[in-house]
C-alpha cells in the first residue's frame, strides 16, 4: 500500500471514528430558555392533596413532600408555583390536557404506561425494604432461614415474601392487617424482620422513634409526570430536580416530613 493510499485509508477511518460524535452533536436537542418555555412565569403543578406525607392540606394550605419539592423546583427555575388539586384518577389527564405543566402525586414510574406522558427523574424510592432491629440487622433474604417474617396481608410485600418462602428454608410468614402492625411485631420481637414499603418504614420510624435497619429489596421510584411533547418542560424540570438531588436539598425535604 502506497503512502498516499495509507493516508486516505487512515483519513476514512478517522472520519468513521468521529461520525458518532458528529451525529450526536447534529442531533442534540437544544431547548429554549425557561422564560420562553414558561412565558407567564408560572409553573402549574397538579398534586393529590389526600396522600400524606406527599400531599395534604394544613389549614387550607398545601403541604407535603411533593408540595415542598414543587416549590423548590419553582424557586430554582425562577417561577411562581401554582397548585391544581387533582385526584389520583385524573393526574395523568391533567398534564395531557395542559391543565398542569407537571404532576407530582406520589406517582410511581410505571413501565406499562407510555404514549402521551413522560416521567422526570425519580426523586423518592418507595421500593420494598427488609426491616430488622438495628441490633440484629438482616442484610438479605438468605439470612432469614428458620426465621419469622412479618408482612401486611395481601400487599406487594406479602407477594414478595411468599416468593421467598419457596427459596428460604424454614421461613415463616406472619400476616398483619397493616404495615404498621407488621413493624410493631418486629419491634416487639415477635418477628425477626418485616417487609414494607420505604414510606411505611420512614413514617413508622418517625412516629415511634424506633431505629430499625432497612435494606432495599426492590426499587419503585416516584417521579413527576409531564406531557410527552413538552420536551423543553421536561428538560428544565429535570435540570432543577438534578440540582435538588445533588445538592442534598431533597434529603432536607424528606427529613422535614419523616
Amino acid at each position, binding site marked *: *500500500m502506497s503512502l498516499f493510499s*495509507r493516508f486516505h*485509508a*487512515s483519513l476514512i*477511518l*478517522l472520519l468513521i471514528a468521529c461520525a458518532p460524535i458528529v451525529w450526536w452533536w447534529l442531533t442534540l436537542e437544544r431547548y429554549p430558555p425557561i422564560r420562553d418555555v414558561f412565558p407567564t412565569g408560572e409553573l402549574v403543578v397538579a398534586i393529590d392533596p*389526600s*396522600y*400524606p*406525607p406527599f400531599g*395534604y392540606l394544613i389549614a387550607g394550605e398545601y403541604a407535603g413532600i411533593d408540595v415542598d419539592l414543587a416549590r423548590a423546583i419553582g424557586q430554582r427555575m425562577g417561577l411562581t408555583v401554582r397548585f391544581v*388539586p*387533582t385526584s*389520583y*384518577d*385524573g393526574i395523568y*389527564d*391533567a398534564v*395531557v*390536557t*395542559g*391543565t398542569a405543566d407537571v404532576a407530582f*402525586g*406520589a*406517582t*410511581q414510574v*410505571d413501565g*406499562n404506561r407510555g404514549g*402521551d406522558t413522560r416521567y422526570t427523574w425519580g426523586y423518592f424510592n*418507595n421500593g420494598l425494604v427488609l426491616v430488622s432491629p438495628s441490633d440484629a440487622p438482616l442484610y438479605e433474604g438468605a439470612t432469614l432461614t428458620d426465621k419469622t417474617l412479618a408482612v401486611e*396481608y*395481601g*400487599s*406487594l410485600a*406479602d*407477594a414478595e415474601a411468599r416468593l421467598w418462602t419457596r427459596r428460604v428454608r424454614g421461613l415463616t410468614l406472619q400476616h398483619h*392487617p*397493616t*404495615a*404498621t402492625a407488621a413493624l410493631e411485631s418486629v419491634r416487639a420481637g415477635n418477628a425477626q424482620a418485616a417487609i414494607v414499603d420505604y*414510606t*411505611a418504614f420512614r*413514617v413508622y420510624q418517625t412516629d415511634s422513634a424506633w431505629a430499625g435497619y432497612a435494606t432495599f429489596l426492590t426499587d*419503585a421510584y416516584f417521579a413527576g409526570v409531564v*406531557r410527552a411533547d413538552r420536551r423543553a418542560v421536561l428538560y428544565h424540570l429535570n435540570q432543577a430536580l438534578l440540582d435538588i438531588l445533588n445538592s442534598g436539598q431533597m434529603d432536607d425535604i424528606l427529613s422535614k416530613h419523616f
Partner: protein
Amino acid sequence: MMRAVLTLRQWFQAARRSSVGRAVLHWRTPMWAVRVILALWLIGQIAPAPVRAPLGEPQTVKVIHPQLCVHTRLIDEVPEYRIQQTFIAIREMGAGTIVEFFPWAYIEGSPGVYGWGQADKIFKHARNQGVKIIARMGFVPAWARPDLTNQPPTTLNTLPEDSFAEFAAFTALFAARYADQLDGIVIWNEPNLSFEWGFRPVDPAGYTRLLAASYGAIKAVAPDVLVLGGALAPTVEPVGSPNALNDLIYLDGMLKAGAGKVMDGLAIHTYGFTQPHDAAPAPDRLNFRRAELIHEVLADHGLGDFPVYITETGWNDNPRWLQAVTPSQRIDYTLGAYKLADETWPWAKKVCLWVFRYPAPTHSYPDYFTLSTTDFDLKPLYYALKAYGAGSE
C-alpha cells in the same frame, strides 16, 4: 493509525486464508452455520404453552342477595384464565352481576372497524358462570374527537356534540350484540366531573342530549336492554367550580332537561370514605347514605320509584390515604352497607363494590379498594362477602 491500517490489512489477508473468513468476505454461508442458526432459533421458540381457559359446564349463581354486585377491570386483562378465574370467584361470592368498562376507543379504533375479541371473551366467561353484566360505556377514539389545532390535546373523555350520534350508534351495536347477557348499559362515567367530561365545564343538559341519543339508538335495536344515566360521582363542588358539580344539583339539571324520559334507571357512585355505612347523609357531606339524597331528588321530580343502580361504592383501607379506614372497619362498613340497602332501599337494584381486582397494581392507594391482589390473593373482605352472599348474616 498507520499501524492500525496495516494490521487491518493483515487481518483481511488472514481472513482470506480461513474458510469461515472466505465465506464471510464472499457472502457465502456454510451449511453448518445455517444449521446452528436454525437450531438456536428453534431453541429460542421453546416456551411453556399458554394457560388455557376451557369452558366447563354452564354454571348458575346462587343469588340470595340480589343487590350484591362488584365492579371488575377485565378489559385490560391479558391472560384469559384470569378472566375466567375472576368470574368463578364472583359466582362463588354469590354476586349475580358485575359492572365492566367497555371503552369505545378499544373496540372501534377506526370508523366502522371493530375489534370485539376482548369483549367477547368477557361475555363468554360471564355467560358460562351465569353472571350478568352492566356495561359502562365511554372513552372516545381519536377519530371521533375534535381536531383542535394549536390547542392542548383532548383526552379519551372528550366527546364533542358532533360525535354524539356516532357514540350512540356504537352503544346500540354493543347492546344488540350482547343483549341477552346485559343487566344494563351505563352511558358515560361521572359526567359531573370536569376531567371525566374531557376537562371541559360540566353540562347536565349537554349530557342529557348524549343520553337521549344513546337511549333512542339502543331501544331501536335492543328494546329490552336497560339504559342507565350517569353514573354520577359523589361531590359537593358548587355551581361554577371548574372541577365538578355537586351530584344533587347535576341530577336536578339532568331531570329538568328531560333525562327522566330517556333512561330506565340512574347509575350513581356513593363511597363511604371515612364514615360508617349508617352515618347520616347531608348535602354538604360525602358518605354511603348520600344515595338517599339522590333518591330524594328523583322523588322531587315524581320519580320516587325510579330504579337506582349503585355501580361504584366501597371503602378503602390504605394506611396513608386520608379518605381511608382500617381493614376491619372496611369489612364492618361494607357488610353493614349491604344490610342497610337490603332492608331500607328497595329502589336500589344493585350495589356494586369498586373493585374486584386490577390487572396490574396502581402502586398507590387505589390498590386498597380491591377484593383481590393482582396475583389473585383474595382479601379477607372477599371471604366476608362470600359468607354474606351465602346467607350467613
